[in-house]
């Protein structure tokens, strides 16, 4: 149909949507703490050390939570 302008607009919408989805995914991963593992692996790679297993890493985080009291308000 020769709708170059329309295609462009469609592309722009797709790009915007993709960015929005990526943004929400980033937020949820950060908020839930899921991305902490990636950050840890990246930090190990930068330092040249080998990371512990994911299971050990999460156990460590559970242990930290066990000994801290995070209040929840009314």
């Amino acid at each position, binding site marked *: 149909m020769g709708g170059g302008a329309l295609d462009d607009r469609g592309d722009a919408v797709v790009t915007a949507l993709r960015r929005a989805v990526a943004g929400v995914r980033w937020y949820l991963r950060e908020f839930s703490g899921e991305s902490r*593992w990636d950050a840890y692996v990246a930090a190990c790679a930068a330092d040249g050390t080998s990371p512990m297993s994911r299971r050990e890493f999460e156990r460590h985080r*559970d242990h930290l939570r*066990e000994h801290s009291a995070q209040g929840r308000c*009314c």
Partner: protein
Amino acid sequence: MSTSTAAPPSRSSRPSPASIAVWVLVAVVGAACWTVLALSRDEEVSALWILFAALASYAIAYRFYARFIGRKVLKLDDRRATPAERLENGADFEVTDRRVLFGHHFAAIAGAGPLVGPVLAAQMGYLPGTIWIIVGVIFAGAVQDMVVLFFSMRRDGKSLGQMIREEIGVVGGTAALIAVFAIMIIILAVLSLVVVNALAESPWGVFSIGLTIPIALFMGFYLRYLRPGRVLETTGIGVVLLLLAIIGGGYVETWGLGEALTLDKETLTLLLVGYGFVASILPVWMLLTPRDYLSTFMKVGVIILLAVGLVLANPVLSTDAVTPFASSGEGPVFAGKLFPFLFITIACGALSGFHALISSGTTPKLVAKERQVKMIGYGGMLMESFVAISALIAACVIDPGLYFAMNSPVGATGGDAASASEFVATLGFSITPDALNAAAASVEEELISRTGGAPTLAFGISQIFDTAFGGGLAAFWYHFAIMFEALFILTAVDAGTRVGRFMLQDTIGNVWPKFGDTSWKPAAWGASAVVVACWGYMLYVGVTDPLGGINQLFPLFGIANQLLAAIALTLCVTLFLKHGWLKWVWVPGIPLAWDLVVTMTASYQKVFSDNPAIGYFAQADATRTARDAGELRGAATNADQMDVIIRNSTTNGVLQATFALLVIVIVANAVLIWVKAVRAGSLPTTEVPAVPSEIVAPADFVATKEEKAELAAWEAERSTTAGTRS
């Protein structure tokens, strides 16, 4: 050089014409909404006027007042490193993205409180509650949260109690420690009471809420053993199971479970106390952490859904702007006149002292840059206020006849549709027994005397969602709302019991160090048992009270929460004067003065009023006189109930008086420091010395163009220095 790349604190530039136009528009919209609310009488008023009055007011307050406090009063300085930057340890101190921290802070401060108070306050009409929630948050609640967060951040995240001890004195500090513990117990008891009232005689509710325990346990084991760290996947599964549990609740009668799951309040109390104890001694990964994920995601999801639902449904307010109960003080939901009792009934959402415990301690250790204190402290509280406004609207769209039939104690309504209809007529409202039965049938629950706020909110929400989304799902939405409220509360009860246990272990640990070891089982179990026994007893007091537990205990809860706010604001004023900021002391001083007037008037009336409906001791005396004369009084139906009323009223009165006295001790101790500080001009404080910050991060929700450029430049510089190093 990578230091001091942050801009100087004041970057005031002339506002652009576009920005001026936008803010004039916001102001005009806000003023128009307020005018409609103030002037409409005897006509149909859309609930959206309240919603937009609130949003416009919040926007203006955030843009102008919060910014003024940040720049001129606290002089937030991004050149100073925050404790998160200086003491980063990957555990409690950690530089956190501002938007993520905003989410965590909001999830920690907002629970069932802002959903319950406004519903009860609706007995005085929609206008008083709306004004207090909005004005209160702007000048008191959000200010308290932001200023406490700031002071704690400048002291490496010290807790409220620690700061009071170090900045005011040992006497004040000790009083604060006791007050915080006691107030927390009351809050847990009243929140549990809301759950018990919502679940009593409701097999559907018991089924759905009961299933949240195995669901959370399943999530816990799944995360621990099957898929470590996959929180989103696990939470997704949990939410689906949760929705199935709500739908399944509709079939309990069909499955023949109806009778087994129809529990009375006493049984529910025992179950809840047992649950609270077990939950607080289990490893947190098993129950507490997964439940927290569920509750947090549900919280945010439902709030968004409610905002969308309100706009789509555009409901009309059924309540009067101001009902006669505001001036007569004889409303059936809670006794007392608008001043002071409206202001203590709505605590969370306008001014909540409990937030000071979150704003000191946890959140300040995670703030990346000083200027973010405005967004997290002030912004987070505005968001909670928005939740309170939504709850107020949900309560005010319900027919007032139904509202009073649901929220009056059973002693008044008699517990069935015909007698409830008669009672409502004596209040000056009308609803037929048929209309009451039809409302109950629409959500498949009994609705007479379902006090505590949760059922009323759930009914309002079901009405709004049913209009907004269609499909005739009112019963589903009702139980959905009950479920999410109960979920918040149970999370608060678990976490609160643990916090109480840590506080108790810490305190006793000062004299018996072994007891302070949080991994020593006997101490952990013993302290948990004490905490659970304390709130469990108060819960039992509420549940068995013939006068209606909510009616009797909610004022105690509201006053306790606001007294905690008085303690926090007293600390803020003290620190203002010690820093020599006499010029700005009105910023925390005005809310403190207001809060003291409200809480002390309310406390005085609850203790000394000779009206038995208000004064706890007058209630006990009148009941005792009647008992001795061999008569029954008020809602009591036998002599045992008379004794219960005497015992409960005396307990409540003693607690009430103790709280008020503790606060007076703290304020008196602080006044000595105020006088000293004003005479000296300023006094040394425990603020940690400034260390230059090396990190760059934007201050607000949306980064400005300059901030983005700064951030990009800093990241480029960091990657080149990292490149040359390795």
